[in-house]
């Protein structure tokens, strides 16, 4: 399945959306319906959605699209860690395995959270199963589930790209405070994951740090697209190198700011991972 097809399907407005939400009365009715399903921890988010509906402002198709795009990425990550940790002999027991289990569980929690959020906002969450993924990326990483270093390299690429993807979508959520805040709260978790996976790789000899130096990835040319643009050292017209007389190298200047990717860029990068 090609993710482009999925995305274009997502981009078609949910035909039932406007029938479901016909003003305040329906909002109260639908709130009563979904309040029983929404996890307690997600309630502030659900309440926000309810108020949006009550005031006649249904979450826009754009917001649902962004959430489904994020959900798609979380499915990729979640399935990747589930499969890796279920593959005998791939991940050595110890701190590394524990960390990967933690990350696996976070990605699964993000899938559940986003599904709940999309439903609560009147959308229909996308669904993916394990069989829909090809983590060799059409043969680019043939030993992804037999070589631990390859597995960690792909994990790093997923996490760093996830950070860039969420960052790129933030402006599309600016009109919806609840959804924006939730997305930011996931975005920084992906960055924590990226930092840890990078530390794991560093400990195994890869030339990486917890942060992204220039556009170096410590993976190889196959991942260049995932890091293109990270090397910039000027922000909002301000040159960061040696700024105001402080000794800031080009490396540090690039590390200090992570860069976003557009949805199209991310889709192009993850498409090979769909079977």
């Amino acid at each position: 399945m090609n993710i482009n097809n999925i995305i274009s399907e997502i981009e078609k407005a949910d035909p039932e959306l406007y029938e479901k939400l016909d003003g305040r009365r329906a909002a109260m009715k639908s709130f009563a319906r979904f309040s029983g399903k929404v996890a307690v921890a997600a309630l502030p988010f659900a309440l926000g959605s309810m108020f949006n509906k009550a005031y006649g402002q249904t979450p826009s198709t754009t917001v649902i699209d962004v959430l489904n795009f994020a959900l798609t990425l979380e499915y990729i990550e979640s399935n990747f860690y589930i499969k890796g940790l279920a593959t005998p002999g791939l991940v050595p027991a110890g701190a590394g395995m524990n960390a990967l289990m933690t990350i696996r569980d976070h990605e699964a929690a993000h899938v559940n959270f986003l599904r709940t959020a999309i439903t609560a906002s009147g959308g229909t969450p996308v669904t993916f199963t394990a069989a829909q993924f090809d983590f060799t990326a059409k043969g680019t990483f043939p030993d992804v589930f037999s070589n631990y270093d390859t597995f960690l390299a792909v994990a790093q690429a997923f996490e760093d790209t996830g950070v860039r993807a969420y960052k790129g979508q933030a402006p599309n959520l600016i009109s919806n405070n609840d959804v924006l805040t939730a997305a930011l709260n996931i975005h920084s978790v992906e960055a924590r994951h990226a930092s840890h996976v990078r530390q794991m790789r560093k400990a195994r000899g890869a030339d990486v740090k917890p942060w992204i130096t220039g556009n170096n990835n410590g993976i190889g040319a196959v991942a260049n697209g995932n890091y293109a643009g990270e090397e910039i050292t000027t922000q909002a017209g301000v040159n960061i190198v040696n700024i105001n007389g402080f000794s800031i190298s080009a490396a540090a200047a690039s590390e200090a700011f992570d860069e976003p990717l557009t949805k199209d860029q991310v889709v192009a990068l993850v498409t090979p991972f769909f079977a």
Partner: protein
Amino acid sequence: MKKEDSVNQSVVAEASSNNAYVSRRNFLGYIGGASALILTAAACKKDNAPASNTGVNLGSGDVGILNYAYALEQIEAAFYTKVFESVYSGISASENALLGDIRDHEVAHREFFKNALGANAIPALELDFSTINFGSRDSVLGAAKAFEDLGVTAYNGAGKLLVSPDYLTLAGKIVSVEARHAAYIRDLISLGSFADNTALDANALDMSRTPAEVLAIAGAYVKTKLNASNLPTS
């Protein structure tokens, strides 16, 4: 750009009409300015204004949020700079190098905000790190963890307060680096704690804090009185 211009204009107007607002240019004037003191006193008498309505005014709108971020970056940058004035003994080469990177990142953030804000920037804050034992690795890393985690919650909470998508993206560019720092520092303290349940909620989301919540915590390290009363709240 139009939106930002209007934000800037409103801040400029506020600076000229509200004596509690302190720009860099008139900061010294504020200290000795008789009219400012008289008006502040009058305001206190009239409204029984709380302490939070005096001091260095972060401003309003997006500029206020950027000044808020600038204040936090001042704390972080000064902290790591002080760490390296006399680094704790027994630090490994790797730890030394990566903590040095973090110092450079925080200085870069601080100076970026200073230049981006220009005439709207708050002055350099007077800070107080006397509760931190800079000779102790545990004390330094514990403080670093607190600052980095706080920074993550601060930026996450500030996102929705910004009007300009460009500033939102900029905040996003910085917050993920703070999260990378936080994870690294946490792992230095206890390997595997990069994203544990002291940072994340039950849905595996980071937390967010309002400026008031953040400043109440960060205030322990800031001697300069900050006035956040004009910051947006939604």
